[in-house]
């Protein structure tokens, strides 16, 4: 590895000066000259047939340019919106999705018409004047009820509501259950969540008919995939479409997949002949931006009386929504991660994807890994409870200890030290004295609970072989280009996308260390498909550092090697004798003869090159990791529950995370803190609620959907353990989702632990005072 001055340093983010002064470059911050406003007319029904759409009055509005419906869009948009295999290649039915409804609407919020007007007021007014005659149809509003063969269908005429139904078996499940001394059952509900980045989605498009170019500005976690999908629909070459995603106000998975508006806005720009902008309102976001989770798990765990875990059988029923999200089946990874950090003889997981009349679900921070973790960590606690064992003890007895470790489904955990992180976390809370305090409190009618979450997660997608199939052809590697200019300044282009993760800082630290130049000399670029490598793979699944960062590292190394060869030539030394030290190329043993990086950069554009070397100093590198990476850790949550009100107070939250080598500890800690906040939010506050009778969305605003404020969240105590990944040279893993993956179950385990003496076995989320109070009333009823 290079001389490291910056890798591992707490470097302040270079993104921040523009953001703290109000000079960010968010999508809505710019409008091309002559830009019009697009307003979407949406279905108020979860399920209905469209009898007719009358656009005459809206079209007659003096400031309206066009009112467009599916019939108009079919002339410029072709094919269906994409659905990738993700973790379920074998789907039974995938309803075809066109960006705008034609004859049937299948979720509340689905686009049925758009109005393009000169200004916002006209667009909003005229959209109200579009008259759509609907014939309401029975709606599927519950994923379990959706499996009833006699119930309604989410799509009229469909044979059933099953999108997929697949069972994966790993190891000797039958043997494990045959040897069981006890089988423990659990049912766990993962409520639907709204990802809720504070910046909604915005799409701006401008079509240039002369050069045949389409420019699309939008907030995306992976602009190149948007270019790929939208250019195909527009029947334009990828070279003719430019997608630009500058500053993005959070994604959390909800800005990965293409949305109807990503197609409708450019298509409208083409049809109207003017630039067009659409800005999502929060109300539109709650109804129309993909949700996450929405799963029900049933699980049986076979154990020995000494606490040895033998086998697990589980079923995941996943509310796919009205259409299969582009990466919706990613969430089935919950099955593969259900074994968690433990050894099993066998695990069998069935995943059923169910169509309902709700907006599609798609990845939301963690995407399947929080669900798998929640499942296994709840089950381990239930096992401990039924056996009368300590929760930490059951974990210790079953932890994987030797790495690399192959889990029942064939995934290879690259490195870990699960005992180490649990020990650190328990020491931080002084576990024995906490347990004593708990016992004393119970005697006095106070209910303290201690919840553990010892998670392991899969991230860093790649590698190429398994991921090419998962996306339907594009292998999830990452590309980076490093260009050195004659003056020695360095421009780096990378295919990942930062929307809060601070890559422009972290990646610059890697480049600066690798080349031995000051960080200020390195400029990072991402988010514009006209720049850099031919394809970029985007940011999700905590992949950016372990794949994108490694691409940046690789391209920098190629540049350094060329510079070293050139320096050797200039210094008239043997290549092997030239060392790179803090930005200087020096000859071993004679430090006086050296060249600076700047001098070599200039020379690379001159005439005095070694024979066979071309001018220039730049390189492209695509990094294809050999494996996924496997961060892990131990979180401990300490709560007190008021048995009279059901109010939960988080007394302490301790997190020990191990994400391998850390490039910038400040950023890592920020990611963990933010991740924990979203996990706690799921455990205690948030839930997308649809009315069980009408199917109408009840949590349509931030008034009803409870994103926690500063007053509701604890300050977690975060620390780290470092077990480098053997998967890549820098030893890095990923950390963007770890907090969320670990946190929800730490909180719920703590609540269940607190309420155990009152006879409460399990609590679903969100564990609101209302829900807990009702459960407490039930167990108290004589």
């Amino acid at each position, binding site marked *: 590895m290079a001389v490291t001055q910056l890798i591992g340093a707490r470097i*302040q*983010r270079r*993104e*921040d*000066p523009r*953001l*703290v*002064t*109000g*000079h*960010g470059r*968010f999508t*809505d*911050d*710019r409008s091309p000259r002559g830009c019009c406003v697009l307003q979407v007319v949406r279905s108020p029904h979860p399920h209905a047939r469209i009898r007719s759409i009358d656009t005459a009055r809206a079209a007659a509005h003096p400031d309206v340019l066009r009112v467009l419906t599916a019939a108009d869009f079919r002339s410029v948009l072709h094919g269906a919106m994409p659905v990738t295999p993700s973790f379920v290649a074998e789907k039974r039915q995938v309803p075809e999705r066109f960006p705008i409804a034609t004859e049937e609407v299948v979720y509340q919020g689905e686009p049925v018409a758009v109005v393009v007007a000169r200004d*916002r*007021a006209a667009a909003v007014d005229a959209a109200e004047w579009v008259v759509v005659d609907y014939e309401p149809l029975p709606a599927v509003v519950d994923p379990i009820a959706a499996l009833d063969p006699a119930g309604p269908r989410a799509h009229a005429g469909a044979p059933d509501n099953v999108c997929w139904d697949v069972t994966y078996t790993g190891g000797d499940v039958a043997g494990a259950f045959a040897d069981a001394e006890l089988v423990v059952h659990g049912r766990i509900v993962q409520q639907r969540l709204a990802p*809720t*980045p*504070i*910046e*909604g989605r915005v799409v701006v498009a401008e079509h240039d008919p002369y050069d045949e170019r389409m420019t699309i500005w939008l907030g995306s976690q992976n602009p190149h995939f948007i270019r790929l999908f939208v250019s195909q629909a527009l029947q334009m070459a990828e070279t003719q479409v430019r997608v630009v995603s500058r*500053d*993005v*106000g*959070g994604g*959390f998975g909800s800005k990965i997949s293409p949305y109807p508006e990503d197609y409708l806005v450019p298509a409208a720009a083409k049809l109207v002949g003017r630039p067009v902008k659409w*800005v999502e*309102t*929060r*109300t539109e976001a709650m109804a129309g931006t993909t949700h996450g989770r929405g799963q029900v798990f049933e699980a049986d765990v076979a154990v020995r009386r000494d606490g040895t875990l033998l086998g697990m059988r589980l079923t995941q029923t996943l509310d796919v929504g009205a259409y299969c999200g582009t990466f919706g089946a990613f969430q089935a990874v919950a099955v593969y991660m259900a074994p968690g950090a433990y050894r099993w003889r066998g695990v069998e997981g069935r995943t059923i994807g169910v169509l309902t009349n709700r907006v599609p679900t798609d990845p939301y921070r963690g995407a399947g890994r929080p669900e798998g973790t929640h499942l296994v960590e709840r089950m381990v606690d239930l096992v401990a409870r039924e056996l009368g064992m300590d929760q930490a003890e059951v974990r210790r007895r079953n932890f994987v200890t030797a790495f690399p470790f192959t889990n029942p489904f064939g995934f290879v955990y690259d490195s870990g030290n699960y005992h180490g992180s649990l020990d650190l976390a328990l020491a931080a809370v002084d576990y024995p004295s906490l347990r004593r305090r708990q016992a004393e409190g119970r005697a006095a009618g106070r209910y303290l609970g201690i919840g553990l979450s010892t998670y392991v997660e899969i991230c860093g997608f790649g590698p190429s072989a398994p991921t090419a199939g998962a996306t339907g052809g594009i292998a999830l590697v990452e590309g980076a280009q490093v260009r050195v200019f004659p003056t020695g300044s360095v421009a780096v282009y990378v295919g990942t996308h930062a*929307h*809060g*993760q*601070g890559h422009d800082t972290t990646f610059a630290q890697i480049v600066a260390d690798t080349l031995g130049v000051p960080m200020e000399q390195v400029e990072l670029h991402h988010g514009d498909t006209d720049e850099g490598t031919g394809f970029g793979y985007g940011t999700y699944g905590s992949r950016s550092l372990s794949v994108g960062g490694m691409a940046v590292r690789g391209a920098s190394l190629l540049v350094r090697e060329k510079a070293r060869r050139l320096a050797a030539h200039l210094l008239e030394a043997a290549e092997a004798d030239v060392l790179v030290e803090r930005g200087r190329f020096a000859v071993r043993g004679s430090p006086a003869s050296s060249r600076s990086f700047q001098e070599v950069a200039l020379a690379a554009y001159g005439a005095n090159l070694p024979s066979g070397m071309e001018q220039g100093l730049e390189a492209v590198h695509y990094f294809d990791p050999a494996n996924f990476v496997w961060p892990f850790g131990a979180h401990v949550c300490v709560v007190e529950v008021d048995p009279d009100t059901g109010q939960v107070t988080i007394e302490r939250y301790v997190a020990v995370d191990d994400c391998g080598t850390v490039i910038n500890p*400040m*950023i890592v*800690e*920020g*990611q963990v*803190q*933010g*991740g*924990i*906040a*979203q996990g706690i939010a799921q455990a205690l506050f948030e839930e997308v609620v649809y009315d069980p009778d009408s199917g109408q969305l009840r949590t349509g*605003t*931030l*008034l009803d959907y409870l*994103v926690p*404020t*500063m*007053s509701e*969240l604890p*300050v*977690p105590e975060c620390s780290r353990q470092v077990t480098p990944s053997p998967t890549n040279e820098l030893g890095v893993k990923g950390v963007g989702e770890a*907090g969320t993956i670990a946190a929800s179950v730490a909180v719920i385990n703590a609540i269940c632990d607190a309420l155990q003496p009152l006879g409460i076995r399990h609590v679903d989320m969100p564990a609101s005072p209302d829900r807990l109070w009702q459960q407490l009333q039930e167990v108290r009823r004589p």
Partner: protein
Amino acid sequence: MAERVRLTINGVAREDLVEPRTLLVHYIREVAGLTGTHVGCDTSQCGACTVLVDGDAVKSCTAFAVQADGATITTIEGLARDGELHPLQQAFWDEHGLQCGYCTPGFIMASVKLLADTPEPSDDEIRIGLEGNLCRCTGYVNILKAVRTASRRMTEAGGAPTGGAAAGSAAARTAG
């Protein structure tokens, strides 16, 4: 019918014709061209749109532009003076109080008002003072730290924020 508004934003006097239903936030972003003030909701929950109107922290999505006639407004762009960041801006940067940065202008403007009223707030006072603002990225941990740090630095430097926003708006309040 469009109506005339006269107001001062970040020290610059303006006069514009606006529709009565134009929200103040849209006026600030689209007419005055100050896009640092953001929109994150449509029910006054998120605080991304917070600006100072005559010294008060106001959610500018919840006021009409015409209501600001005669007012003195400070937005996030008006905080830094002579290229020097306001202590709150500096503290958000130093303490990693932002990730995506979308909520940040609103948080900083609300914090300016908080520290003007309560120069040395307790953690609970910071929480209560900022619970009208939502951040989805940070878990608020470093926002809390940033406000504490700014408060400490401002107190050490002798009270008034260097940016002069609070002082300026206090003067405007007296004048109005």
